[in-house]
């Protein structure tokens, strides 16, 4: 137990999640350890971890995992949010949050989530504002300069760096799966943190090139039921893997270890939903 906490905090440190910004809001002062000589506020990661655990418990308390929506307008958080959604069975909104998605029932993208997870209160402020109209509690990763208005559970951490955001979503996902019992000492979670990191488009393309051929062969395998239509898309749907953008092809290599993690309650549906949302993103 304590060992895991120590490892996780070490991971947060490595990802520089403890580094805030040069400004600090009054509400965030309680999470700050001290201010460095160069003016940067430093978080107390012990408190960060506590809030992560609290958030995980709240997420688990929602009976239907599909009622949880994770949001990230900024690119750095998009991959983390999508992965979180795939592994926990939640829904992800990536990129622009269409105003009215929570309040306008006549809109096509109308959703009524029971919980909202947000990467940055400032950039995702539209989602937070609408959640307030519809009685939806909000969990957010808040930095030292974040405004906590409309946020119910704040997880103090660096929400600017791509490694930091990746690690935060990784830990949150794992804590949720642990609380659910899907992951435990007996069946450890063998997904790497790297899966949650944002990748620059060039990076993603580079890695995709060799994998794309592997993916093509994988897909051509007649064993997959219903692989009639578009190659990558349909195969990924059936196997419960996230959408077939090149980067996810990496997962195909680690296929055996992926199965347990990628098969939570609404796994298939979640993957399909991800595929939908994915259209605009990468």
């Amino acid at each position, binding site marked *: 137990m304590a060992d895991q906490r120590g490892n996780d905090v070490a991971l947060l440190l490595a990802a520089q999640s403890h580094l805030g910004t040069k400004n600090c809001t009054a509400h965030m002062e309680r999470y700050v350890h001290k201010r460095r000589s160069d003016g940067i506020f430093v978080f107390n990661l012990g408190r960060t971890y506590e809030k992560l655990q609290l958030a995980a418990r709240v997420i688990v308390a929602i009976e239907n995992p599909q009622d949880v929506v994770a949001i990230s307008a900024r690119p750095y958080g998009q991959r983390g949010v999508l992965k979180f959604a795939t592994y926990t069975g939640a829904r992800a909104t990536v990129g622009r949050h269409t105003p009215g998605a929570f309040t306008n029932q006549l809109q096509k993208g*109308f959703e009524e989530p029971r919980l909202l997870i947000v990467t940055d209160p400032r950039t995702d402020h539209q989602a937070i504002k609408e959640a307030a109209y519809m009685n939806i509690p909000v969990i957010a990763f808040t930095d030292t300069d974040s405004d906590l208005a409309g946020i119910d559970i704040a997880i103090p951490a660096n929400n600017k760096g791509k490694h930091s955001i990746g690690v935060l979503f990784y830990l949150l996902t794992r804590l949720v799966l642990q609380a659910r019992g899907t992951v435990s000492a007996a069946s450890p979670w063998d997904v790497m943190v790297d899966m949650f990191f944002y990748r620059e488009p060039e990076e993603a393309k580079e890695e995709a090139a060799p994998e794309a051929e592997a993916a093509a062969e994988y897909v051509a395998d007649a064993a997959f039921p219903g692989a009639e239509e578009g190659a990558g898309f349909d195969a990924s749907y059936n196997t419960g893997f996230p959408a077939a953008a090149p980067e996810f092809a990496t997962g195909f290599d680690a296929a055996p270890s992926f199965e347990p993690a990628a098969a939570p309650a609404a796994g298939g549906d979640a993957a399909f939903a991800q595929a939908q949302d994915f259209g605009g993103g990468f």
Partner: protein
Amino acid sequence: MYIKGTGKHDSCCSLLLRLVDVRRLAWHGKIKSLEQIFLFSLPIKEYQIVDTFLGSALKDEVMKIMPVQKQTRAGQRTRFKAFVVVGDYNGHVGLGVKCAKEVATAIRGAIILAKMAIVPVRRGYWGNKIGPVHTVPGKVTGTCGSVSVRLIPAPRGAGIVAARTPKKVLQMAGIVDCYTSSRGTTRTLGNTVKATYAALAATYGFLTPELWKETVFQKGPFQEFTDFLAKPVIKGH
């Protein structure tokens, strides 16, 4: 997507592709009364929800039709603003304001908005707690613009001592006896009626000794019926 109904027929709601969860629960009888919706502060986004619970008991009254104008190079463009109060004379009121090119459309729209803005009104006693509740539980006040309307508990038999417009609203709320005191430019009917509505809404926001007992929290309808809501929406439901 959404096909507009005439508003008169209930069947129009069956054409809505996306029904708000509260509506689904109400329609299927999972939510037993409006008070459950009020208890959990669920936003009412579709007026049919209110109709399901209050239906025929709900009466509406047009308080005023106000012509408003906008200047265009070709003259004035007149629209009509309708103020409608909706109530069941037994503890529920709603106020709706709608502006439209035709009077009838404005009234219809205002009725819908009034239903969605329905609010529970707490009633109490002036003195002895004999018989049914009849007056406001305490002195409450509501403001809108410059108008402030103060409602004061009155003894049984006093009737509603108020000007025409607030009186109508109070009657529809189910208040039998009440003293009032108002201030500001009360001839702006819009503000007066909104102030009275605000005062009535405030009755349940007031902490009295009866409410001192600790609340036992129950599961909200979204949590209780999460399995039902998780089922895909069949067209018309």
